[in-house]
């Protein structure tokens, strides 16, 4: 109906169906699609007439950039803060940071982004949201980072709370171990002990938590892109749903799922290498 427009009538409909292979049973259609996928052909969207492939290829780098930037941001803040916290557990700094992080994790990313935008646009009068505002990396990398900053910060906040909590509790546990007491008895400073002795075993847990974070990360990613109109996969996905562009939805779901599985594999692999204890078991 959508495709034929005014030329819609039963004969044409039958012809179109035949042409698109829609007259075959649904199972067959599905297998044909899988066959196409394996050949790298995700099909051409009925709605936008653009190949699903190219849409995804255009959107994917944006997601990757957002993920990388936000995670670096989150880690850069979480690691030093967690170390500071674990140095004096239940001390004033620790209590403040732990309470703060706990509160933050109860604020879902869509609320964070809404309030950040409220803050930024109302208080400072900046309005760099909207698809026109996004500048790709290639053209102007400073503007690019600027346009992504709000999104990256929002996502980073969510990831930060996880990293901070996990790292802090792991550090506190590691600090109870005998080899830390021995390191103390050698007269080493607390700071040195934290960074040189405690951090390495704890960083493994951090790595592990990174893969747990993926679920929440995706949710935040999609929500933020949708709200700030950043043309990444999340934005495309929601738009596709709203325009009933099922082919595109299928394509994106496939790519994202495969991506996540791949990333989990890689993480597991790295963890096995980094921790000599685990590989020995």
């Amino acid at each position: 109906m959508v495709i034929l427009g005014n030329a819609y009538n039963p004969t044409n409909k039958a012809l179109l169906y035949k042409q698109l292979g829609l007259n075959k049973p649904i199972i067959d259609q599905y297998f044909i699609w899988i066959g196409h996928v394996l050949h790298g052909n995700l099909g051409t969207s009925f709605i936008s007439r653009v190949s699903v492939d190219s849409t995804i290829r255009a959107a994917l780098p944006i997601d990757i950039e957002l993920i990388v930037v936000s995670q670096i941001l989150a880690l850069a803040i979480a690691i030093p803060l967690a170390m500071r916290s674990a140095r004096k557990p239940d001390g004033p700094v620790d209590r403040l940071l732990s309470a703060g992080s706990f509160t933050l994790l109860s604020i879902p990313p869509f609320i964070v982004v809404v309030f950040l935008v409220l803050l930024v646009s109302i208080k400072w009068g900046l309005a760099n949201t909207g698809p026109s505002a996004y500048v790709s990396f290639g053209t102007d990398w400073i503007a690019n980072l600027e346009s992504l900053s709000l999104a990256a910060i929002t996502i980073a906040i969510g990831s930060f709370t996880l990293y901070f909590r996990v790292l802090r509790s792991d550090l506190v546990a590691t600090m109870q171990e005998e080899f830390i007491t021995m390191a103390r008895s050698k007269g080493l400073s607390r700071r040195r002990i934290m960074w040189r002795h405690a951090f390495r075993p704890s960083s493994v847990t951090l790595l592990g938590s990174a893969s747990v974070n993926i679920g929440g990360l995706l949710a935040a990613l999609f929500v933020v892109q949708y709200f700030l109109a950043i043309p990444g996969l999340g934005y495309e996905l929601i738009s596709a749903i709203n325009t009933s562009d099922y082919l595109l939805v299928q394509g994106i779901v496939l790519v994202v799922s495969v991506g996540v599985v791949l990333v989990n594999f890689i993480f597991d692999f790295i963890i096995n290498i980094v921790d000599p204890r685990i590989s020995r078991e």
Partner: protein
Amino acid sequence: MSDSASKLLVVNDLTTTFATLGGPLTAVGNVSFDLSKNETLGIVGESGSGKTVLSRTIMGLQPRRNVTVSGSVLLNGQEIVGASEKAKRKLWGTEVAMVFQDPMTSLNPVMRVGKQIDETLRVRLGMSRADARARAIELLELVGIPSPERRYDAFPGALSGGMRQRVVIATALACSPKLLLADEPTTGLDVTIQAQILNLLDELKERLHMSVILVTHDLGVVATRTSKIVVMYAGRIVEMGSTREVFTNHRMPYTRALLDSSPKITNPSHTRLTTIPGRPPNLLNLTNGCSFAPRCAYATDRCRKERPELTPAGEPGHLFACWNPLMSNREVGVS
């Protein structure tokens, strides 16, 4: 008692209390003793007697949270109780060092062995990387590790238990401390290795002119290697004196029970092992009387009501805490 100035370590009325969810727990109660240069002291007791907490408190290594320490510990005239972490750190490694019980947990499992030794050398003594490495290899050799250059790069997991403990000893000795606290240094090791490690400690003590405090539950270990011993029960000292005196002329029934319960090679085969009936007391619910009374064959009413203080036994330095002590061998005429 000679003046404190000549003593390496003077412990006076040391008490360590933990604030637990079930109430305050006195792990170490009113412990006093001293140690001269080049002397070796043995601290003996069952599990739960407080000996590990005592050794940690002496060094100032007790956990920082929910722990109160009162009394005094003078190391070479410097007060450890109540000293700031910074002040204590200056002493750790260079004046006093500790050898821990389980080398698998006391060594950092993800750091190479050599690095763990020369870390102290570089941070505390300011040695260069090359110098530190050379000295570390020297130390590994000193503690009897074969092919030290190769072992320098090994991870703790690659070494056997005995070798790991040697590494721990090497690390402790790196900055030539005057006092070495060895907390059950051989308990986790094979029996054959135990003797080796203990002999090594003896040797090193002589060579480096160190004083050693040996903490253990095994009387056999202290019998020939210490000049003084302190017997602990439920956090308190129940008997102390020169090793010879305590072994041959002990007055406190617990000491006798401890001695009796260690198997002797001279006993005929199939001799039944004597055990001490009952279990050590729950340190959260200590009674007013002697802590050993419930398990003591000689306990009197007074023992159950009043806690005995340490009283001198005759020979200088020999003290015991008991209302109903065993008869002194001296009095009976046996020497």
